[in-house]
């Protein structure tokens, strides 16, 4: 084989190829599989949460054996419930959705779709993955320490998260949580730097910015948002660590009274943490959701055989969302004790995000207009994403509005809303992406029958499950409750918990169909041709699976935008980005 540019050469040993690989495609798949593993963990936690909510006070023999401290005498303790929901949230957001969408698809797709041989700095890329692995282990391991895993929610509000005596999980569990998060931030920063530099600097000839697939745009903007939003959280996490272990009082005021003793702290305020946390926390949800929207918008043209609607405006809207997302964090704090005047500002700012978001949503639906639709599994999940995004997005109008948020804040309405958005939208799009790019990853197709089964259970179950929680929230059901038996007014709305839980179990069970399909197809699936979906983007001009270093000797040259489907006068109904204007007219 000829020596490739950049001095890329194929490593020979198994370890160098599949474990400590610097190949972006291997790293992408590593991220994806890690995310799946963590999804099993995070999902199992959710199932245990739902078990408790369905049958409060029930005896659980197996759980009692697995967690003798948390499920003492086979009965779950409230603090164990708090660990479950805290770690479920943390794992799902940071170690499942972020890993799958940013780490997984980002690594796998960016070089392939912009025509680069690899990431700008492959070694840093590998380092980024191998920083995430210990972070995952620390998070999971924290269940084993004294007091159990963190119990202050994924938002880790002090004083609960800062004072060891406040809750058992605030002993070692919370410290491990902070360390895990610090590693996650380090890893994300390495990955994000690589993504932004690769997208700006490594595009192949002809791949101008406005010829990039929207997926790449969204990954670019997500990385940029993350790079801007994570540093303040890192600063806050460091200070929280000092408050916990070195006697400082950044988040602790004077007069704190725990266990019959006054704490010596003075001068800080818990609100400081909330501001810093949400300065990251809100942009983070856009970090998660934007790539999902990008994948959706890229899938629609393939399966409707026509260009996406409103490419340019979508890109502008992404910029607008990114900019606005940095200045609306206060909508999580309307009733936190923050000044109500600031609340008004945040309400107006937050609701202005609905405008670019709605434009993107309408662009999705409009992309179907006049097309010739096909419904293989990826397209089904794409339609599912649109449904979740629609309903979930409208829930945001209730919560962004300070006045209605007075009633809805910290109720199950919030839980329902964010599950539809950063759970539903992201997972549906991630599933669509896996079914779609699987042939590029493994050179084989996933099983369609199993895929359809997966979709037809997952989508309705997910939707019903989390729609129901909106209504429970309207009924005043507070979130993070171990048990709803203590309140009379909750008896009626909480009665639905059993059904909600049963739906959740169905939803959880059917994910094993997906896992089975994934691993079975990776080895036994039908062999795929190079371009099974007849798509136009660059990755489909490369062999499946693509070799290390991508594209052999000659990088492809790009002559058109990624959505030239059904070009009038062209021989086929798709014209790859590499086809020069002589083959078919360039239409954008």
């Amino acid at each position, binding site marked *: 084989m000829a020596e490739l540019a950049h001095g890329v050469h194929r490593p020979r040993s198994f370890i160098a190829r599949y474990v400590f690989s610097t190949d972006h495609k291997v790293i992408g798949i590593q991220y994806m599989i890690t995310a799946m593993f963590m999804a099993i963990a995070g999902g199992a936690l959710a199932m245990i949460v739902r078990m408790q909510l369905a049958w409060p006070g029930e005896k659980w023999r197996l759980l009692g054996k697995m967690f003798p401290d948390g499920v003492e005498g086979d009965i779950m303790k409230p603090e164990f419930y708090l660990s479950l929901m805290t770690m479920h949230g943390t794992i799902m957001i940071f170690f499942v959705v972020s890993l799958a969408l940013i780490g997984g698809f980002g690594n796998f797709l960016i070089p392939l779709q912009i025509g680069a041989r690899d990431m700008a700095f492959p070694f840093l890329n590998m380092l980024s993955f191998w920083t995430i692995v210990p972070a995952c282990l620390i998070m999971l391991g924290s269940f084993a320490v004294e007091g159990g895993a963190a119990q202050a*929610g994924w938002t880790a509000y002090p004083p609960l998260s800062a004072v060891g005596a406040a809750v058992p999980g605030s002993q070692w569990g919370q410290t491990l949580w902070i360390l895990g998060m610090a590693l996650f931030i380090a890893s994300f920063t390495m990955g994000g730097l690589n993504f932004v530099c690769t997208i700006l600097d490594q595009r192949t000839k002809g791949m101008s910015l406005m010829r990039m697939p929207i997926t790449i745009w969204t990954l670019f903007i997500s990385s940029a948002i993350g790079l801007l939003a994570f540093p303040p959280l890192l600063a806050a996490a460091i200070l929280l660590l000092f408050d916990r272990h070195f006697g400082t009082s950044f988040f602790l005021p004077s007069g704190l009274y725990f266990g019959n003793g006054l704490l010596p702290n003075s001068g800080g305020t818990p609100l400081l943490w909330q501001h810093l946390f949400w300065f990251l926390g809100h942009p983070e949800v856009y970090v998660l959701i934007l790539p999902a929207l990008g994948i959706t918008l890229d899938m629609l043209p393939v399966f409707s055989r026509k260009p996406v609607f*409103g490419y340019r405006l979508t890109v502008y809207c992404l910029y607008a969302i990114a900019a606005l997302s940095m200045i609306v964090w206060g909508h999580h704090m309307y009733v936190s004790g923050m000044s109500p005047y600031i609340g008004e500002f945040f309400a107006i700012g937050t609701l202005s995000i609905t405008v670019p978001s709605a434009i993107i949503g309408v662009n999705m639906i409009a992309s179907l207009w006049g097309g010739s639709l096909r419904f293989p599994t990826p397209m089904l999940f794409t339609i599912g994403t649109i449904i979740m995004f629609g309903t979930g997005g409208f829930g945001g109008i209730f919560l962004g509005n300070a006045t209605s948020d007075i009633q809805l804040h910290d109720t199950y309405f919030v839980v329902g809303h964010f599950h539809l958005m950063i759970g539903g939208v992201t997972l549906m799009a991630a599933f669509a992406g896996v079914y779609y790019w699987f042939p590029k990853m493994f050179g084989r197709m996933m099983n369609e029958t199993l895929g359809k089964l997966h979709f037809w259970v997952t989508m309705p179950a997910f939707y019903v499950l989390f729609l129901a929680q909106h209504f429970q929230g309207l009924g005043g059901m507070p979130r993070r409750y171990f048990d709803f038996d203590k309140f009379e007014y909750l008896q009626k709305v909480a009665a639905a918990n059993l059904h909600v839980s049963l739906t959740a179990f169905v939803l959880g069970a059917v994910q094993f169909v997906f896992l089975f399909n994934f691993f079975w197809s990776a080895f036994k699936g039908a062999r795929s041709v190079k371009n099974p979906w007849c798509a136009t983007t660059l990755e489909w001009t490369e062999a499946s699976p693509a070799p290390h270093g991508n594209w052999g000797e000659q990088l492809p040259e790009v002559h058109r935008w990624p959505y030239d489907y059904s070009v009038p006068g062209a021989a086929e109904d798709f014209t790859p980005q590499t086809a020069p204007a002589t083959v078919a007219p360039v239409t*954008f």
Partner: protein
Amino acid sequence: MERRSGLILAIVIWLIGAGVVMMGARTWLPPLASEHGAGIDAMINFTMTATGGLILLGHIVLGLFVWKFSRQDKITFRLAGPRMERRWSLAVALLVAAIAEGGVLVIGLPVWAKVYDTASPANALIIEVTTEQFAWNVRYAGPDGVFGRADPKRYSLDNVLGQDPDDPAGRDDIVDLNMIHVEVNRPVLIRLRSKDVLHGFFLPHLRVKQDSVPGMKIDFWFVPNKTGSFELACAELCGLGHYEMRGVLVVMTPDEFRKWKEEKRNG
């Protein structure tokens, strides 16, 4: 094949749209028992109606597209010009802005301003609520209208509020646990403090929610306009007893309230 998938998918989409709207049309909010709550309910109901309409419209359109365009083998429309894209976006932008921004500016913020930016009326009943894991400590100033001094340094198991026994202003203070007694139609000013972690003062029937924050003293007020007992829940995660941190707001007629106060002072 595609036609069948398209039709099934479209039907499911329509069912979802119809289901959401049918569910949303039911009454979910707990029965209202406060004056300002009417404004909050109006805000929620407006958004419910408006987004309900949009969700229905969206699902109908999405289902129609899925069904209709699954039936054709050749595309019938390809690329929209920039002007058409811009027009559609502008229409969407205006519609959503009218609902979201219009709603908050016209209906929402006036209510918000009434709740938060307005000083409580002079006849308000002032009640100090101090939260701790996992209880609501309630204190009323006595007939003198002045709360006695309290200091964290005096916190103990017998003196949960850290009251100063030497302060004459504190002698007639009434202290209660997990029960708040108020008069119907008389404004209540809550002075909220916390001894340990964050808690959330949540009266679902009165549409009242406010976090209590250690180190801060947060004042807010509302007017209960129905007699009866209303549950007080904690809405901010505060530890392992969060789910059982229950209080009760008892709204009484002025006579009953007077009687209760006397009993309390004598008893």
